[in-house]
């Protein structure tokens, strides 16, 4: 059941929360026509700048604009500090888990995670067994997805440890807000985020034992849905944006082809899934990867960020164990909560799930992007029945969670301003130290009542503010 939700801007009595007061005053004082005009201006600017994404399965590769909402999502600084500590704690534990899993496997021997759950998992990469990584960091760049329940409690929905995207929208949204409404930033202190590319470059450089490594961004190419972001980050960091065909391996070392001959590559920020990295070691049909890359990597001649095989730690069937990992590796209590999760692979939990489908959210353990999921309360009986069959056929491929209400934030819609559901993805960078830029990407489900915020499913974005309280 959808419970009555938590609104970011208004409390239960309809009063504006203190950290939104300055904004609410400004909103009341600004004429509607001016706001409408600025919103049109934002659309035009985004289109001109080509800040677009491509939908999977769209054969024409049509570029779409991710709708941008001009009402920011605001977080009081005191609240943010807790979220920040929680994300850092989580990413530290996940990196320790990966290092342990690919070496001694203490956590399995301690009986905390069943061996089969991780070792027989497709995302567990034998190629990583026994391989030592600089600083023991596997996931250098993580996106932690958070939502808030009816009482405002933050929950971690998933940890994205492979190739999380969206940070370019976080940065562009801020740029756009400052361009459209500079007066808002003069009126109160909003934590800056535009140093993210510097932090990212610093993180990537610190992932290599070399003093001044040569860094590149590896993209699947211009037809990838997140190509804009790959190009954006390469440009902001001042490094080369390469495709697989631009790189080659000679004697276990990676080089790029340049107009001036071969040039060595030391760190690859790859936005390409494991299976496509090396057609001689993984998917043989991949035309996106670099033949020989795996052995250059295993020889320690090049760093991949993130490492190969991080997917085993953000797999939805491993997610329920993250709070235990925090206790096991850090000897701390988890700061952020997990959503209670039923694993359909366990017969008892499966029957509970099948009996309660209309109230649950069911997800594929290895799915992402909001594809292949069931939102029980929003689904028709026919959809639920069809999903029931899919779960029964492959129970190990699904997990289920209670339907969280998700907090709302006022959002511009066709008939003015109305509450819409949102989530939050802070970006965590793990290098010499583990850091998060204040805020993150707020995604908003633009359809009334919808809980799916993914851009591929009609979601939009908002600027995210951390304001001093």
């Amino acid at each position, binding site marked *: 059941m959808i419970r009555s939700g938590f609104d970011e801007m208004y409390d239960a009595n309809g009063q504006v929360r203190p950290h939104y007061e300055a904004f609410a005053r400004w909103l009341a004082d600004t004429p509607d026509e001016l706001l409408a005009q600025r919103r049109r201006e934002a659309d035009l600017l985004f289109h001109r700048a080509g800040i677009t994404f491509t939908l999977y399965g769209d054969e024409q590769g049509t570029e779409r604009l991710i709708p941008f909402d001009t009402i920011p999502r605001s977080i009081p600084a005191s609240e943010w500090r807790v979220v920040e500590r929680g994300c850092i704690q989580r990413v530290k534990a996940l990196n320790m888990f990966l290092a342990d899993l690919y070496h001694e496997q203490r956590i399995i021997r301690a009986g905390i995670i069943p061996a*089969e759950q991780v*070792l027989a998992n497709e995302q567990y990469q034998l*190629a990583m067994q026994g391989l030592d990584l600089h600083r023991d960091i596997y996931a250098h760049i993580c996106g932690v997805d958070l939502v808030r329940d009816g009482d405002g409690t933050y929950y971690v929905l998933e940890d994205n440890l492979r190739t999380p995207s969206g940070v370019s929208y976080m940065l562009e949204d801020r740029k756009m807000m400052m361009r459209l409404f500079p007066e808002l930033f003069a009126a109160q202190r909003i934590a800056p985020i535009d140093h993210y590319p510097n932090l990212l470059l610093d993180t990537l450089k610190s992932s290599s034992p070399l003093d001044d490594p040569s860094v590149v961004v590896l993209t699947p190419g211009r037809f990838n849905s997140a190509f804009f972001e790959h190009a954006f980050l390469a440009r902001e960091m001042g490094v080369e944006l390469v495709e697989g*065909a631009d790189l080659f*391996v000679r004697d276990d070392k990676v080089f790029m082809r340049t107009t001036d001959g071969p040039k060595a590559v030391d760190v690859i920020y790859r936005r390409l899934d494991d299976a496509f990295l090396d057609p*001689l070691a993984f998917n043989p049909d991949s035309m996106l990867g670099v033949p*020989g890359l795996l052995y250059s990597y295993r020889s320690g001649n090049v760093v991949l960020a993130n490492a190969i095989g991080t997917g085993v730690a953000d797999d939805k069937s491993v997610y329920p164990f993250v709070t235990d990992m925090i206790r096991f590796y850090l000897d701390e209590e988890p700061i952020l909560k997990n959503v209670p999760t039923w694993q359909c692979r366990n017969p008892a939990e499966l029957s509970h799930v099948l009996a309660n489908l209309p109230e649950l959210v069911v997800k594929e353990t290895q799915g992402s992007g909001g594809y292949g999921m069931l939102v029980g309360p929003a689904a028709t009986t026919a959809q639920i029945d069809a999903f029931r069959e899919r779960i029964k056929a492959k129970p190990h491929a699904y997990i289920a969670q209670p339907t969280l209400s998700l907090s709302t934030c006022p959002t511009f819609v066709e008939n003015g301003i109305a509450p819409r559901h949102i989530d939050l993805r802070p970006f965590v960078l793990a290098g010499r130290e583990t850091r998060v830029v204040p805020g993150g990407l707020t995604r908003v489900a633009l359809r009334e009542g919808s809980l799916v915020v993914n851009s591929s499913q009609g979601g939009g974005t908002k600027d995210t503010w951390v304001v001093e309280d």
Partner: protein
Amino acid sequence: MRLSISHETAYHYEDQVRASIQYLRLTPHDSERQHVLSWQLDLPRPVRAQLDPFGNILHVLTLDEPHETVIIGARGQVDIDPLREAEHESQSALPFLRFTRLTEADEALRAFAAQQCQQRRDRTALIDLMHGLNQHMLYTPGATAVETSAAQAFAGGSGVCQDHTHAFLACARSLGVPARYVSGYLFSEESEHLASHAWAEAWLDDAWYSFDVTNQLARPERHLKLAVGLDYLDACPVRGMRRGGCEQMHAKLVVTAAPVITVQQQ
């Protein structure tokens, strides 16, 4: 039994190749069953040996001068202990439960495995499975290709050792038994001849047992092991790519010469 091997593979390309890269798993290593007395690879240029994720000895050969031929030679002597049936290893066998594109078990394979083994998960059950697959899939060179999956070959009712092995792996894993692909050489006494071959190993009672579906052998007396993996792609002796005159890489090699293998039994 002592085997002497001399194995030469020659690749001839129709057009000049601008650059090529090959993953070579052509070097056996010592184990409980086999002892390598001597082994040598003859390659166009010196290459460092390393271990791949499955513990196989791997050579990565990169050639970036234009060439039309690549000749790869392997020579050596190996002692095989015909009495030892199983091999022990410290690494967990659980990763060998997962399916790959080539070893995906469809409904037909799952049903076949269940019917052959019922509730049994022991060696005799898998021996029954081995015989069953051999009868179901007639040994037919040319009926399948390198990229044929277990399900496709099983549905077609024919195949070669690669298909037999893939089908066995799909069935065993569907029963919850870890199983892996083995590539190597098989000595046949009738022809005094050694041939490239593939068979399966399954994890039973904390050890790896061999199942050669093609020859219906559950004792690997005449098998020299080169490499193991989840499927053919992980374990095959040579996997390579080249960059030709045009811009694209070609995933498949043009192989025009059959391997020449000689052996003497001593």
